[in-house]
């Protein structure tokens, strides 16, 4: 309900004298009273904003999943349309107005596989399956404490913290990877991995899973689980570093994995695993000056691995921030700041990243305070700011929509 403009209410009855003034006052009071009443809550409609240039491309646009702070139930999805240069906030609410309590609480991963889009909603214990073109809901897969998703030959593989409970002297609960049939949305198999598994990827017939052990503080996990796709059983573990998080396999079969560090002595770092014939070799990938990279998030485009992150250092009492690019062929860090126009000064917390596969434009989601709207920055391949736009809360995960024709 839109409150009436008070001026209209005041002067609309053309009455003179004291009676008129009293009447006007009463009407003003009435309009204030009406404004102060409750009204029906409308499902959030979408909001459109023109931000970039129009462009014809086989990549039609991208979706951005905003995590939303825990308990806020404010996970939302935005869409950028390259053909019109329009950014639309909250496309999920618009496409699915009848879904009770909307998309959910804390989105943790977003992928498009074939014609469908999969959003992993961590604190809503579900994976939302949508039509990729329209974001219309197809169904949901319930999975407690689900984290990240990867696809292979008609199956989705989702990591989850909620494995079977073991009551030994302590209390331990290993994580799982669940295999889901993408056609029927049925869970078909489960594989137990390490403690609190996070991101996973598939290469060479194996699923590599980064185990964090985040609930085990201070005894974090330090391994990558290797699952054989054929048997869907954990085959072995590759020790890497504490509290692993992101994991991406490149075209050469190398596995890039990041550590969050333990927030005290060990800082965040990036590692590269080469695993020919099951003989894993782990390399620490650091900047030319020997400094570790802070990895909040990372993405792969061609032979370039883009790594962003900021970390508070108790030694300098300041944030250390990097926007790095690694050549995956040479494993050299090419730069620790690919932003060349000084825009990094206005980014509070780089949180989500994606690189356009054709134009190599770089998208960075700034989570800011986590409870207020974030900002999406789009940079040219040379690191110059092209545009920026307001997002939902905690812009974090991207998926490019490719045209089918």
């Amino acid at each position: 309900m839109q409150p009436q403009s008070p001026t209209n209410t005041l002067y609309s009855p053309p009455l003179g004298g004291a009676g008129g003034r009293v009447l006007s006052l009463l009407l003003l009071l009435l309009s204030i009273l009406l404004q102060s009443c409750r009204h029906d809550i409308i499902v959030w409609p979408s909001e459109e904003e023109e931000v970039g240039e129009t462009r014809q491309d086989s990549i039609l646009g991208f979706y951005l999943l905003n995590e939303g702070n825990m308990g806020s139930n404010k996970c939302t999805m935005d869409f950028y349309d390259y053909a019109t240069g329009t950014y639309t906030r909250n496309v999920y609410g618009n496409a699915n107005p009848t879904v009770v309590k909307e998309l959910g609480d804390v989105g943790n991963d977003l992928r498009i596989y074939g014609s469908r889009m999969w959003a992993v909603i961590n604190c809503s214990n579900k994976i939302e399956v949508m039509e990729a073109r329209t974001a219309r809901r197809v169904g949901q897969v319930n999975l407690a404490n689900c984290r990240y998703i990867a696809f292979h030959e008609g199956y989705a593989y989702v990591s989850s913290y909620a494995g079977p409970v073991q009551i030994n002297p302590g209390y331990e609960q290993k994580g799982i990877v669940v295999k889901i049939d993408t056609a029927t949305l049925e869970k078909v198999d489960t594989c137990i991995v390490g403690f609190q598994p996070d991101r996973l990827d598939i290469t060479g017939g194996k699923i590599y899973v980064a185990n964090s052990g985040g609930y085990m503080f201070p005894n974090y996990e330090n391994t990558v689980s290797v699952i054989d796709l054929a048997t869907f059983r954990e085959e072995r573990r590759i020790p890497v570093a504490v509290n692993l998080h992101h994991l991406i396999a490149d075209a050469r079969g190398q596995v890039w994995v990041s550590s969050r560090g333990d927030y005290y002595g060990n800082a965040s770092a990036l590692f590269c695993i080469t695993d020919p014939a099951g003989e894993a070799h782990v390399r620490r990938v650091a900047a030319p000056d020997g400094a570790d990279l802070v990895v909040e998030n990372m993405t792969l485009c061609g032979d370039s691995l883009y790594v962003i992150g900021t970390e508070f250092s108790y030694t300098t009492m300041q944030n250390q921030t990097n926007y790095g690019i690694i050549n995956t062929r040479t494993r050299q860090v090419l730069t620790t700041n690919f932003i060349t126009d000084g825009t990094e000064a206005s980014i509070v917390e780089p949180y989500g990243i994606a690189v356009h596969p054709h134009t190599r434009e770089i998208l960075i989601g700034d989570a800011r305070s986590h409870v207020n709207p974030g900002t999406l920055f789009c940079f040219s391949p040379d690191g110059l700011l092209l545009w920026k736009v307001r997002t939902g809360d905690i812009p974090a995960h991207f998926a490019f929509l490719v045209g089918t024709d």
Partner: protein
Amino acid sequence: MNLRSIAFILCTLFPLLALAQERDSVIHSSIGWGRGSAIHPSPAQERDSSSFATDSVSDMMEVSVYARRSEEIVPSQRLGGKRLQALSSFSVADAMRYFSGVQIKDYGGVGGLKTVDIRSMGTNHMGVFYDGIQLGNAQNGLVDLGRFSLDNVEEIALYNGQKAQIFQPARDYGTSGSVYIRTRRPRFDEGKVYNLRASLKGGSFGLINPSFVWEQRWSKRITSSLSADYTGASGKYPFRYRRVLPSGQVAWDTTAVRQNGDIRSCRVEASVFGNTSDGTWNAKAYYYDSERGIPGAIVSNVWKHAQRQWDRNFFAQAGWTKHVSDRYKFQINAKYANDHMRYLNPDTTLMYQDNTFRQQELYLSTAHHVELLPGWQMNLAADYQYNTLEASLTNFVFPQRHTLLLALATQYECRRLRLMASLLGTNVWDHATKGITSDPVSSATSRWTPAVYLSYQPLRDCPDLSLRAFYKSIFRLPTFNDLYYTEVGNASLQPETTRQWNLGFIYSHDWYRGIFRHVEVKADGYFNRVDNKIVAIPKGSGQYRWMMMNVGKVHILGVEATAETVMRWHKDWSLVLCLNYTYQSATDRTDPTDNDPYYGTYGGQIAYVPWHSGSVAGNLSWKNLGLNYSFIYVGERYHTSANIRENYEQPWYTHDLSASYRWQLPRLALTFALECNNIFNQQYDVIQNYPMPGRNWKGVLKVEF
């Protein structure tokens, strides 16, 4: 200051007491000053309408000179006696909704957390005093006012800044706002030596609440009170969420039952009160034990939670006031508190947690009041406090805190001017032992903070009207959680400061005949600044990792207005009406770069503070029949300081109605009451995703011997 100076100060102050003790008490007579009870002058209408109150002379505490409200130097609000009983309130937090300038954060239900924020400065700035001594929580600074039932409470008073008198412990000067909860003091009818009262309440959410009070007069000088109650509730209530399409068509509409909001708690409280010819003393022991579910946020696909919490609170406190001469009196207060809390998350899909926390507090205080010249008084108080926290958390350090407070206050009255000024010195030593990955931490803070209160009667012939103003600067210390909580804590935090400026007036008049017996109007405008606000800031690399930082700034501009009246006619009829209104503009001044005019947080109204709020309460009585109506209104708010549509929270308002009948028999009295709360069944959230109960009922049966 160091420990040696504490020792020195305590040594110099306590001998004074010892000396005072030995002195002869002939100098003064024993009238009037029972506990210096001008502390709590009862509101006029309470006297008026207490048709069955026992104004027994045997009780010295009641023989206080009722200070005129218009002379009140500190803006305050009170609820007591029959009016308090008449409000359909279960806990102290429910009753405090009727105060202006107060926001209650209510997570819903009987067992849900309810905390109070005064003038938008933050919950941690509110001091809660139970029978004169502050309830502490060094762990997180929160006092859950939902836990204090109104069964045995006689009066709740709220002061902006500090209490309107200077003869008090130093700690009473140390908060930005104070709530004083005073339990019932025994009072006896002529010839009676005991009172027995039992009541049983029951109603919606499976509520069952029996309570019992036994008051005994042992001698002319010693009385005691024992009270106990049990509260059990399933906490189950239906709630509804509904959304419509822009066309007005229903998009979705869902009803569910609130789960895991159950509670069972029991409270036992014993007090002894004594009068001596030259003073008073009292001692009290309090025990509270509870188990409750934590109902949690309702989000997509999650309709119930499994977390549980157990609390065990014990404290024992004692106070002694002695009037050594007409010019000098002193008081000593002491307290020991032991709080145990267990938190369990048995939900195996989440991080399993079973943590216990134990807090202990030791408190000693001495205050000395001297009348230097007629109308000019001085008070010197010194308090010592020791807090510890033990936790079963991994890598938890064992924090300890020593606090020494020194307060010097003075009050001056000269015909139409009243002045009160105080200076509080706070000295804190924190120490935390070495954790697995951290070194031991020690820190010391020392600060002096002033407060000045002024009231003036502008018209010579009109003592009913007075103007008042105050300035107070104070701070809150970072809590143990802020400083040391595993991963989140930041041991280098500074105190969070508040500065308050207030200007207002009060007009109050009593008549002894006619329909109107009492009218009171007061209004205050204020500006508050909160600096170095302790805020959780995400610190990057990994989810849910926050760190406490001193970055927040808030500016609060507000107006509060209250009007109340007492009417009587036909000897059997009376009507008490009370209106409250609050306007607040509480803006976030933290990050000047986040200044987008639409969605920026700079200049935005801070989380959950409505611009407009108010209440109306009315009590109509005829003989022994009473009818009460109340209305509470909280205007639109946003749940973060980015005031955009996505963060909008609707206004909410509830209408409550209750009726009571008291049946006086020769030897006993029976009271029946029936309450209906939220009559129109409004479905609302005070906190986002925490649905509140709709229409609910309560029945009360009370027996008094």
